[in-house]
């Protein structure tokens, strides 16, 4: 039988390819790097991510698809690729001193992180359910290991086991959803699914399949009621891994979520939009209320990340061009803000001894005024105060919801933001108003952490004060 020449177009997968090659180079470099020079592997990884980001920039506007319609380099995917690369680079900056202090500085840390990034980019640019599934697995498997990377610490291992079992459980649902969609439409290609649905009405099987897909995505982005693993995993995993997971996984998974639901299944929108609206309300409310009750910063940020997933889901419910671009902007804003907050928490730790209780932050402003200021800015941005990035993001998302007739959803979102102010301000009050606890003397902030923090804070302010360029970029991210 004749074999057709496959549809190879390496250019459109260049970002993922560069990240993969970097991972392999770092893996080989690990063999020849002496123990005291391991940080160079981190620098190498960042260099690879920067090159990948440039590759993504060079593809801007190309709108090319390839590999038999499995993957596309459109602006939507490229915007997410840039967000993911930025979050990975900042996370590595935070990680280099962190994993050294915790004596887990092995090159494999960076290799696994880069493999996960490759999976995220694949997931964000995939246009076929099977490729989305493989991207999901490729991003998840390294993260299970990274969550358990502090092998001496049973809490870290426990986070790894929980994340693994629940992640694999959710992939099974996702996969069964793909199977039912395949059975109903005869294809897994998103464009062909949309075409098939345009011709014939959906069947009950298709609806169930779509429901299972939603369950799979809901697990990955931690929507209530599929969120219960999040606090435990975020709490137990190494702090830098938590920082990375909390932002990058959301960017990739929400990218595929939007692509699948908004572009492949618009014909079924009547069914799933109502479900998504209910999920958004539950997620925002439960995330914020649970965050109120936390005394540990990592757990508080875990619940806060659940709440933010709820805000982003509002943009999906809106199902409009503005909804899509507001979600992209929000993901970028959330990425820099949350990494800044985690960066500040890492900056305030004392070598391997971390300060994770909110009361531990007492008096930090007196000892570390700049770090305290950075943490304050990031928390205010998370709460949605102007003039920071988080405010603009929320403004755009709620605006998109109002435009499309979901004003009540926007109102619930605003009310939730008000509730969130209380718990975001608690660490700030501790830092500025309480007497310093003992043990602050002698803590020096690692230069790389300071650099990451600086980049994050500048981005938070820049996105808040001059949001126009980023909004334009996000609006250019429209698939159609």
């Amino acid at each position, binding site marked *: 039988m004749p074999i057709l020449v496959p549809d190879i177009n390496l250019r459109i997968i260049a970002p993922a390819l560069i990240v993969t090659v970097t991972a392999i180079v770092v893996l080989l470099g690990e063999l020849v790097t002496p123990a005291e020079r391991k940080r160079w592997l981190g620098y190498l990884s960042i260099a690879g991510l920067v090159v990948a980001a440039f590759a993504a920039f060079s593809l801007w506007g190309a709108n090319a698809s390839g590999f038999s319609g499995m993957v596309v380099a459109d602006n939507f995917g490229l915007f997410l690729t840039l967000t993911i690369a930025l979050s990975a680079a900042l996370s590595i900056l935070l990680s280099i001193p962190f994993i050294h202090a915790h004596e887990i500085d092995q090159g494999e840390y960076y290799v696994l992180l880069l493999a996960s990034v490759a999976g995220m980019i694949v997931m964000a640019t995939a246009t076929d359910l099977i490729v989305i599934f493989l991207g999901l697995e490729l991003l998840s498997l390294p993260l*299970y290991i990274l969550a358990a990377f502090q*092998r*001496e610490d*049973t809490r870290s291992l*426990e986070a790894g086991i929980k994340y693994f*079992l629940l992640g694999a459980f959710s992939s*099974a649902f996702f996969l*069964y959803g793909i*199977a039912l969609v395949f059975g109903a439409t005869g294809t897994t290609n998103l464009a062909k699914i949309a075409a098939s649905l345009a011709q014939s009405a959906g069947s009950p099987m298709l609806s169930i399949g779509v429901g299972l897909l939603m369950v799979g995505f809901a697990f990955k982005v931690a929507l209530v009621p599929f969120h219960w693993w999040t606090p435990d995993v975020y709490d137990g995993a190494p702090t830098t891994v938590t920082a990375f997971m909390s932002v990058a996984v959301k960017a990739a998974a929400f990218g595929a979520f939007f692509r699948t639901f908004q572009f492949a299944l618009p014909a079924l929108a009547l069914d799933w939009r109502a479900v998504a609206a209910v999920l958004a309300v539950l997620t925002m409310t439960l995330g914020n209320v649970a965050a109120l009750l*936390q005394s540990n910063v990592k757990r508080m940020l875990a619940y806060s990340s659940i709440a933010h997933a709820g805000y982003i889901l509002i943009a999906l419910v809106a199902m409009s061009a503005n909804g899509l671009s507001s979600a992209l902007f929000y993901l970028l804003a959330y990425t820099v803000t949350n990494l800044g907050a985690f960066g500040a928490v890492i900056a305030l730790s004392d070598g391997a001894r971390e300060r994770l209780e909110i009361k531990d932050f007492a008096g930090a402003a007196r000892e570390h005024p700049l770090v305290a200021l950075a943490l304050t800015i990031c928390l205010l941005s998370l709460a949605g105060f102007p003039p920071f990035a988080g405010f603009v993001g929320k403004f755009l998302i709620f605006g998109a919801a109002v435009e499309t007739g979901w004003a009540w959803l926007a109102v619930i979102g605003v009310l939730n933001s008000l509730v969130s102010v209380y718990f975001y301000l608690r660490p700030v009050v501790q830092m500025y108003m309480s007497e310093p606890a003992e043990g602050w003397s002698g803590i020096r902030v690692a230069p790389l952490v300071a650099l990451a923090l600086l980049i994050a804070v500048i981005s938070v302010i820049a996105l808040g004060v001059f949001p126009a360029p980023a909004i334009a970029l996000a609006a250019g991210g429209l698939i159609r």
Partner: protein
Amino acid sequence: MLTVNHFILLSAILFCLGAVGVLIRRNPLVMFMSIELMLNAANLAFVAFSRYLNNLDGQIFVFLILTVAAAEVAVGLAIIVAMFRARENVDVDEVNELKG
């Protein structure tokens, strides 16, 4: 006469058995076995659809999913064994330092 409904019904029962297994058991290894049952059910659905749609894609997916399952088993069992080494107990209910 066998129809695709027979196969999907079998696959649905297997999938639900696996899902219930994950939810009710607390040993990570048994939970993991139940997840494998669920993946297997998805494979069965793919092959059945592939045959009745006269579309080979379903069988290709099975190979990809098999590989994913193999990768998952390697990673998952490695973490479970590491946990066992660190702490001689691997029940998810009892492994519970992370609560708050």
